[in-house]
């Protein structure tokens, strides 16, 4: 039933890198949640379960030929738009945002699915679109519309992090197809004055303040500013060798916010020091470069597009999350793939890994 070549071409490097990160993540979640007083299954066990479940899904996805995704792509897209509208109408509200949709037996977060769906949709669109000599502004009109619709819907939730990510993924995939220089210039010519106009004329002072707080969280010592300061203290106080496993004072005394999810990297950096973060970042870099290598090796345009989409999805997650906890980027709720606690993020990332595996395994078929 399964082609023998598929087994022999199984991408062990990819799966090893992913499992490696996952296991470091589980170890870290154990430490990050060591001080939580809670009944029931501890977080690190749950994360192990999610990891196993995720790997299973990734294998299932990998076993399917990714070309079937092309056939369903617009159906996925339509279904997702419906789900996003449904979230806005009947979604579950928590922490000031409406992101979850209760489907009776389980809850889904459609904005999370959007990341995969937009990759598939863009891959499908660009696969059949031939921009000679690179994409012009006109060529971008339709894909940008395809992008704008769900982005506006998730901005309404509001989920700024996912919106940013989806835009970055879409732009990265477009880059893979290639822009004309004139497109880049005219794009800049339109957006820069537009942004300035919005800022100078349209926005009220309190809105400007909010944007400034967002760009530079340390402006506000309370709220998100406080979290970033504490996170930087955690990372910085780790030093070169770190404070030792389960010995980070910032994390064990709970000075860090959401330390098992979005700020998991801070916990790791505090306890393992620069040595630890260097190794972790090198593993992540290897994963990303391996993903790009899969795209390069693939002799199929659809496969290349999908591989670049998935790889840049992981890349932007990593950069935005780590950038946030070390005070380089604004605070947006973006998890660190395979590392932060959370089922949704794990499944999304694993589906992505499945797609990559599927492409990598089939590299000799075309």
């Amino acid at each position, binding site marked *: 039933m399964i082609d023998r070549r598929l087994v022999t071409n199984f991408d062990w490097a990819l799966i090893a890198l992913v499992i490696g990160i996952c296991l470091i993540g589980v170890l870290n979640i154990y430490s990050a949640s060591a001080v939580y007083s809670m009944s029931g299954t501890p977080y690190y066990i749950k994360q192990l379960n999610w990891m196993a479940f995720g790997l299973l899904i990734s294998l299932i996805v990998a076993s399917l030929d990714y070309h079937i995704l092309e056939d369903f792509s617009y159906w996925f897209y339509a279904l997702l738009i419906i789900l996003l509208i449904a979230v806005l109408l009947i979604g579950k509200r928590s922490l000031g945002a409406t992101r979850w949709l209760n489907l009776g037996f389980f809850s889904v977060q459609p904005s999370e699915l959007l990341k995969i769906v937009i990759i598939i949709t863009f891959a499908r669109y660009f696969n059949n679109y*031939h921009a000679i000599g690179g994409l012009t502004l006109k060529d971008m009109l339709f894909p940008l519309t395809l992008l704008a619709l769900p982005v506006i819907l998730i901005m309404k939730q509001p989920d700024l992090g996912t919106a940013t990510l989806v835009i970055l993924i879409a732009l*990265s995939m477009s*880059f*893979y*197809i*290639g822009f004309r220089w004139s497109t880049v210039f005219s794009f800049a010519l339109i957006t820069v004055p537009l942004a300035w106009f919005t800022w100078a004329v349209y926005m009220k002072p309190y809105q400007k303040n909010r944007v400034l707080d967002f760009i530079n969280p340390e402006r506000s010592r309370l709220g998100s500013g406080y979290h970033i300061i*504490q996170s*930087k*203290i*955690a*990372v*910085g*106080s*780790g*030093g*070169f060798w770190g404070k030792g496993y389960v010995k980070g*004072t*910032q994390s064990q*005394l*709970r*000075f860090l916010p959401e330390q098992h999810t979005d700020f998991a990297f801070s916990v790791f*950096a505090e306890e393992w*020091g*620069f040595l630890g*973060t*260097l190794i972790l*970042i090198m593993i*992540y*870099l290897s994963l*990303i*470069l391996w993903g*790009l*290598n899969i*795209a*390069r090796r*693939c*002799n*199929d*345009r659809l496969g*290349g597009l999908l591989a*670049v989409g998935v790889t*840049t999805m992981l*890349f932007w997650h990593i*950069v935005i999350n*780590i*950038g946030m906890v*070390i*005070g*380089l980027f604004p605070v947006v709720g973006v998890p660190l793939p395979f590392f932060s606690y959370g089922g949704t993020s794990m499944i999304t990332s694993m589906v992505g890994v499945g797609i990559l595996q599927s492409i990598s395994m089939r590299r000799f078929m075309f």
Partner: protein
Amino acid sequence: MINEKRYVRELAQSKQRTIPLAFVVTLIFILLLMRLLYLQIIKVDDYRARSENNRLRFLPVAASRGALMDRNGTVLVNNRPSFSLTIIPQEVKDVELMIDRLSVLLKLDRSDITERWKKAKGRARYYPVVIAVNLSRDQVEIVEENKLSLPGVEISIKPVREYAFQTSAAHLLGYIGEISDKELEDKAYSNYNLADYVGKNGIEKAWESELHGNDGGRQLEVDSRGRVLRVLAETTPTVGNSIVLTIDSRLQRIAEQAFGEKAGSAVVMDVTNGEVLAFVSSPTFDPSLFAGRIPTDIWNKYLDDKRHPLENKALTGQYPPGSTFKIVTALAGLEAGIINENTTIVDPGYYELGNRRFRDWKPGGHGVVNLKKSLKESCDTYYYQLGEKLGVDRIAQMANQFHLGKEMGIGLQHEKKGLIPTSEWKMKRFGQKWFIGETLPVAIGQGYVLTTPVQLASMVATVANEGTIYRPRLVKKIVDPDGKLIKELSPEILGTTNISHASFKKVKQGMYAVVNEPGGTGANARLWDVKVAGKTGTSQVVKLGEDRKRAVAYQHKDHGLFVAFAPFDKPEIAVAVVVEHGGGGGAVAAPIAGRIIRTYFDLKKPALIKDKEKKTVEDDEEDTEAESKADETKKRSSSQQGDE
């Protein structure tokens, strides 16, 4: 086919684009690593300090205050436990509700509690906030019984001052109170915390740094909500040092009793070294009331009392010295060669200067008067004519030799320096030249002249020891909590007079006559076994002229003064007594001085101590007091036997 070719070409171009993508990705990762390098290696010390600062807290533990003792080692002020009610904010869910419950349960004033609570707002949540002090045993019991339903509420034991002899020597000892906001801002109190107790007055304030001790503390690890997780280190507080005063508490109490209800002051000094043996300001007050919030009615009672109980009269009371100043005028006359012991005048009862008549206190006059008689009978006319010959500046020079008109530097707050007028002073002060008519009152210690009881005692001491001015001292030594000597304070000489032995001798003989010869004004201070020498004084508060004999309002009555030293042949102590608005010095002040001198010499005789003490105890003190004092007496007499 063309399409396929194009497909392959486009695919190849796209595949090439993964190379710049890889570059961008690597670059951004390097950027992240550089940032991590900056935070974790370059700025590590800064962030490590901040993380330590996050988790470590310091909770001070107040040191126990040192004791105050008298020269014999009798404890005058010490600590007793006092119970305060504290709330640990992090353990109380609804503080307002808790305050309501406590105020009802313990019958406490809610506004007091709320005020204390508000003052502590914004402090760390693990830090106990004192919301009520000086709880009674009953209140403590109620809290203990309801402990389970009062989470986060605790009774803390804080030492408070206990005064062994209640109001005795209150002005000297001073009192302590909660540190004020103003003091907290002061650099001198930089180590102090809110709700700490500090000396507010007297020795308690002047020797705060010795008495306070070193606060200890606990280093705590707290979490992000300020909850204490564990104690990392602990330093125990060290008890403050004790101050051994120069006063003899027995002499002090008897001197206070001698005043009865009268207002005034008495200072007793050792003429050989300046040690103050008794330091009385009457009436006195209860210093223990000042530790907490003083009840309004008592506070008002103190303020309304026209005898001014809160005023330290020995140091801040400035009185015209009256005839006691004749000692100074006489010495000035002798040293200037204007008079000698044989110089006589005839006193008709007044002295005429120009067309003004200056009256003597004795309407008929004293007849023929020489120096000795002038002191003995306190003849004003003698000093009017002497003053006129001397002029004000020569009198002032002599007074200044005795350090009158200057601060004695006794080491307590608010010391007053009195006033010795000169012509220069008047020009500066009023822009007028001095009139000879103003010299005559100065010669008898009236007019502008002002002195404090401490200055008068020092003056007499200097006469007694013939020329050495010692700084009056209140503190004998500082000892550590175990009684080991830390510092002994030695006598300090402020200056010496250049007055001849002969002049001193003549004046002293006159002072002897005041007490011991018929017609002397100080006969009330005479003792059967000790030769006392002294000088009376009656200083006018207002000029009443011929109407002096009429009944006048309290605050217009004369001050009665008496200064003395004893024994005459080999002086040991000097005494100055001022009775405010008491009338003639010979009548009201001399008996008090007599009783003080009597007691001083009685206390020197070991055999007599017991009887005397017992009598005092039965007369004036409560039963509980009696026991403790009997113990003291035993201790003291045994130690004294050891000395001899």
